[in-house]
């Protein structure tokens, strides 16, 4: 058997010049060295706020979370949430196993080393008496916290900087508008970058999710031609061509259209890649999104439909795990909010934030890249990695950190 591209033997036959392999013959990208900051951010990008848990889950009893590889103890005191490095400097015991022996403090469960919640300073050592010589001489790191969208957010600093206002990092439409939101916070296996790339990935939803129950109500094309449009701190996926079915040479016709599923719209509308609706929510319309899927740092996905927006926050836990925070927002007020309770708890929670999103979790868990061989729709992935590089360079320049 002859290899088609094997060089001619030196001992006979005409020697053919070695040709450069076609692009499709090349082995693909072996690493992410084209995006060094992104490559190095296995445990997440520092210098951002991250949602770590529901506000109602943080009480006077400490809660342990891991964020960007750092173990953090959360505790609520007088209504305020505090975050401390979850390790007693004495013997390395997690402070989150301790409790509050004095107001405004957290005591280690082992020997009663007691730390002030505000600044992390060791303010008492119960088993060494009131005149303990170590008191006030050390402490544990503290992290800035905030509460938004019913969740606790923790800022992980890049250096020793003050955090930027959390509202400048939230999607703009969520800062001042009134709305209803339903969400799911779930620990998941796999690196946060795979989850983020999956969220903004142009290609997968049409195929991977074809079996999900959510797709009974949401038609998706077979393939698209997509370009990426940057706007402010966001990048948008914009569909230039939408193909609902296609003939594949030599193999046949493929479509995800089925008689039992909602049929594709006659005219595709930009928001949600759906049919033109009778009415678009005024808040969503006023945003003038160039495309329905957008992404910003440090891994915030926004999928805008005519009457609701779905967000995903990919929270880095460590190099091998992340936390999925899915949020469905409906800009409704008054009696219409009751309908949202029913819709979210009765359907969306199970179908979209459940089975549909579970298919993503499955793929994120088994993704293993690089090496990788990207294809045309992966412009969404490379644009995101480039955005991460640019935003990180900007942040480092602003902070003067290297």
């Amino acid at each position: 058997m002859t290899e088609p591209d094997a060089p001619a033997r030196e001992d006979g036959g005409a020697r053919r010049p070695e040709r450069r392999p076609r692009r499709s013959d090349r082995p693909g990208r072996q690493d992410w060295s084209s995006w060094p900051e992104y490559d190095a951010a296995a445990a997440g990008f520092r210098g951002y706020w991250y949602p770590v848990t529901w506000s109602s889950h943080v009480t006077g009893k400490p809660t342990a979370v891991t964020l960007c590889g750092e173990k953090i103890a959360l505790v609520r005191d007088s209504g305020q949430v505090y975050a401390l490095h979850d390790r007693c400097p004495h013997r390395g015991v997690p402070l989150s196993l301790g409790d509050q022996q004095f107001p405004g403090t957290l005591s280690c469960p082992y020997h009663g080393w007691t730390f002030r919640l505000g600044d992390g300073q060791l303010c008492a050592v119960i088993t060494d008496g009131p005149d303990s010589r170590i008191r006030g001489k050390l402490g544990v790191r503290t992290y800035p916290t905030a509460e938004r969208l019913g969740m606790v957010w923790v800022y992980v600093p890049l250096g020793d900087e003050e955090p930027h206002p959390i509202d400048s990092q939230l999607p703009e439409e969520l800062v001042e508008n009134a709305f209803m939101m339903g969400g799911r916070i779930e620990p998941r296996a796999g690196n946060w970058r795979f989850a983020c790339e999956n969220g903004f990935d142009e290609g997968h939803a049409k195929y991977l999710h074809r079996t999900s129950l959510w797709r009974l109500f949401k038609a998706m094309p077979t393939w698209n031609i997509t370009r990426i449009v940057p706007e402010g701190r966001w990048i948008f996926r914009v569909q230039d061509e939408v193909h609902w079915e296609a003939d594949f040479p030599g193999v046949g016709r493929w479509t995800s259209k089925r008689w039992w599923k909602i049929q594709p719209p006659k005219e595709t509308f930009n928001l949600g890649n759906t049919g033109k609706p009778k009415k678009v929510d005024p808040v969503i319309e006023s945003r003038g999104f160039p495309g329905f899927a957008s992404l910003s740092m440090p891994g915030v996905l926004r999928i805008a439909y005519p009457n609701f927006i779905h967000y995903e926050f990919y929270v880095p836990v460590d190099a091998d795990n992340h936390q999925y925070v899915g949020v469905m927002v409906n800009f409704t007020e008054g009696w219409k909010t009751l309908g949202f309770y029913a819709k979210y708890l009765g359907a969306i929670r199970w179908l979209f934030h459940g089975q549909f999103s579970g298919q993503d979790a499955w793929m994120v868990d088994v993704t293993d890249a690089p090496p990788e061989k990207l294809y045309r729709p992966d412009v969404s992935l490379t644009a995101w990695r480039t955005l991460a590089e640019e935003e990180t360079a900007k942040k480092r320049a602003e902070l003067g950190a290297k």
Partner: protein
Amino acid sequence: MRRTLLTLIIGAGLAAAAPALWRWIARTSNTQVHRINQ
């Protein structure tokens, strides 16, 4: 009579416990619904 009384007592107990039950489910569930800025 006795059955009616029992039903009323259980019903009243469930009604009284409903808010606490709802808060417990909300506190422990990984899915929640919130009204924001309203």
